[in-house]
C-alpha cells in the first residue's frame, strides 16, 4: 500500500513536472541547442522596438548561448536601408513601408504591436480633455497658462522626451502634426521618469505610451478620443502607430524563429511589458 502510494506520487510528480516544463518553455523550445538553429542575427532600426527586441534576444540567448542576436537602433530609415541591403536580418520600422521600398528591396512586413501615446497631466489638474489645436499650441509655447484652456490660473510646465525617442516621434507626428516645439520644455529620458515628473508637478503636461497610464497620472481626452488600450487597438484613438519587423523576402532560419517567437504568447507578454499593445499575425 505504502509502496503503491509512493509510486503513484512519483508518477504524478513526473507528469506534472513535465507538463509544467513544457508549458513554460514551449515558445523557446524552437531555439534549444538541439533545434539545429545556429549562427547570428542582427536587428536594427526603430528605437521604439528596442526594449521588445532586446528582451526577446536575451531570453533566446539564455536558452541557447551559441546563438548571437544583436539589437541596434538608428531609426526607421536605417532599418529599411540596412535590411534592404542585406546588412541585417531584421529591419524595424515605426511606419508602414512605402510602395517604393517594398518594390526596390522585396521586403516583407510583420506588424507586431500598436504604440499609442496619451497626453497626460497631474490628477490634481481639473482639465479632462484638450483639442489637437490646444495641445499643439501648448507644446509650441504659445499657450502658457492653464486658464486659457479651461483650467485654473497657473503657468503650464512642459515635459517632453529626448530626441530619438519613439514615443516622442509618435506624439510629434500624430498629436502635434509635426508642429513647432518650445525649447524650454523639460526633457526626461523614459516613460517612467515622465510618469514621476507629471505625478509630482500639479501644473505639468507631458505624454506617455498608453501602456504606462496609471493611477498617478491622468490621460487627457484628445479631440474627444479616450486614450485606452482598447481604443488604440480598435482604431477609436488615433495617436498611435504600428511597429513593424521587416525582412528581405520571406524570413528564414533564425530570423523566422525570432519573428515566430515575438508573435508567441510569451513574445506578446514582452510586447505588453514594454508598454505596447501586441498584435496577432
Amino acid at each position, binding site marked *: 500500500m505504502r509502496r503503491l502510494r509512493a509510486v503513484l506520487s512519483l508518477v504524478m510528480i513526473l507528469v506534472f513536472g513535465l507538463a509544467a516544463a513544457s508549458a513554460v518553455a514551449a515558445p523557446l523550445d524552437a531555439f534549444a541547442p538541439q533545434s539545429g538553429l545556429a549562427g547570428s542575427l542582427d536587428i536594427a532600426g526603430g*528605437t521604439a522596438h528596442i526594449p521588445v527586441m532586446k528582451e526577446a534576444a536575451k531570453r533566446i540567448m539564455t536558452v541557447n548561448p551559441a546563438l548571437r542576436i544583436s539589437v541596434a537602433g538608428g531609426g526607421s530609415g*536605417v532599418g529599411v536601408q540596412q535590411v534592404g541591403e542585406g546588412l541585417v536580418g531584421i529591419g524595424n520600422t515605426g511606419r508602414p513601408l512605402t510602395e517604393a521600398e517594398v518594390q526596390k528591396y522585396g521586403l516583407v512586413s510583420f506588424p507586431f504591436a500598436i504604440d499609442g501615446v496619451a497626453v497626460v497631466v497631474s490628477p490634481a489638474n481639473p482639465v479632462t480633455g484638450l483639442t489637437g489645436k490646444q495641445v499643439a499650441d501648448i507644446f509650441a509655447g504659445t499657450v502658457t497658462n492653464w486658464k486659457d484652456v479651461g483650467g485654473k490660473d497657473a503657468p503650464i*510646465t512642459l515635459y517632453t522626451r*529626448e*530626441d530619438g525617442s519613439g514615443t516622442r516621434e509618435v506624439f510629434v507626428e500624430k498629436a502635434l502634426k509635426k508642429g513647432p516645439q518650445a*525649447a*524650454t520644455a*523639460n526633457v526626461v*529620458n523614459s516613460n517612467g521618469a515622465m510618469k514621476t515628473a507629471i505625478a*509630482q508637478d500639479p501644473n505639468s503636461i507631458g505624454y506617455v505610451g498608453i501602456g504606462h497610464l496609471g493611477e498617478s497620472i491622468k490621460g487627457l481626452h484628445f479631440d474627444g478620443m479616450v486614450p485606452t488600450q482598447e481604443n488604440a487597438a480598435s482604431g477609436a484613438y488615433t495617436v498611435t502607430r504600428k511597429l513593424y519587423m521587416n525582412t528581405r523576402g520571406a524570413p528564414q532560419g533564425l530570423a523566422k524563429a525570432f519573428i515566430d517567437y515575438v508573435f508567441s504568447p510569451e513574445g506578446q507578454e514582452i510586447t505588453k511589458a514594454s508598454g505596447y499593445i501586441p498584435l496577432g499575425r
Partner: protein
Amino acid sequence: MRDGNTPPALRCAAAVTVLGIAAVFGFVTVYALPVLLSGQGLAVLSWRWLPAAGQFGILPMVCGSVLLACSALLLGWPLALCLCGWMHGLGPARPARGLRQLVHGMAAVPTVVYGFVSVFLLVPLVRQTGQGSGLCWLSAALVLALLVLPTMVVIMDAALREQGRSLRLAGAALGLSPAQVFAHVMLPGARRWLITAGVFGFGRAVGDTLIPLMLAGNAPGVPASPFDALRTLTAHMALVMSTDAGSTAYHSLFAAGILLLAVSAGVSLAVRRLRGSGQDALPDAEWRP
C-alpha cells in the same frame, strides 16, 4: 621606478593604466575628429540643438556644464571651508569629531540616492516658489554642492590637520586663540590645498551625470535665471545615447565627449601643478602676523 627594483607586476599594472588612458584619448579623438573637421564642425559649435531640423549645436550644453559646476562650487567650497574651520579649533571637539565622521559618511552615499531623494523633497520645495517646474539650475546646483562637499572637506581637512599639529601649540604659546591660529596661520599655509580642493570639486561637479539629468530639467538652452532648466554635457550624452545610435546627433556626442575629456584632463593637470609647488610651501614661509 627609477631604482630598477620595481616588481614586474607593478610595471605591468602601470603600463596597462597608461595604455588604457591613451586608448580613451585616442578613440574619442578619432571618432570626434571627422565630426569637427567635416562640414558639421561648425554645426556642432553653435547654439541651437534641434536634431529634427539638422541643427546639432552643443554650446548650450557646454554653457550649462560650466554654469552648474561653478555655481555648485560657489555654494559648496565656502561651506567646506566653514566645516573645516569648525573641525580645526573653531568648534568644540566632540561635535567636530561627529561632523568629520558625518562628512566621511556622506562620501559613501551613491549619487542616485541624492538625486532620488531630491526629486521628492527638494524639487517640490523649489516649485512652491512659483517659478517653473522645480527641475532647474538651482535644484541641481544645491544638490551638486552637497555631493562635492565631502571630496573638498577631506582634502582640506587632511592639509589642515598636518599643519595644525605643529602650529596649534606654538600659536597658543604666543597667546593666540584657536580661531586666530586658524584664520591667520593655518589658512594661509594651506592656501594651495584649499585651491586644490576647489579644483577637485570642480572636476567632480562637471563630470557628474545623474544629478543634472534628474534635477536640472534638461532643456537645451541657456538659463536666464536659477529657476530655468539647463542641460549639461554629461546629461546630454546620457539623453541622446538612451535611444539613438548611428545618427548625426549620436556622432556629435563625440565632440561633446572630447570637450569633457579636455576639461577633466585640464583639472588633473592643474591639481598636479598645485600639488607639486605646494609641497615645499611651508606655513612659516607665509607667516604674516
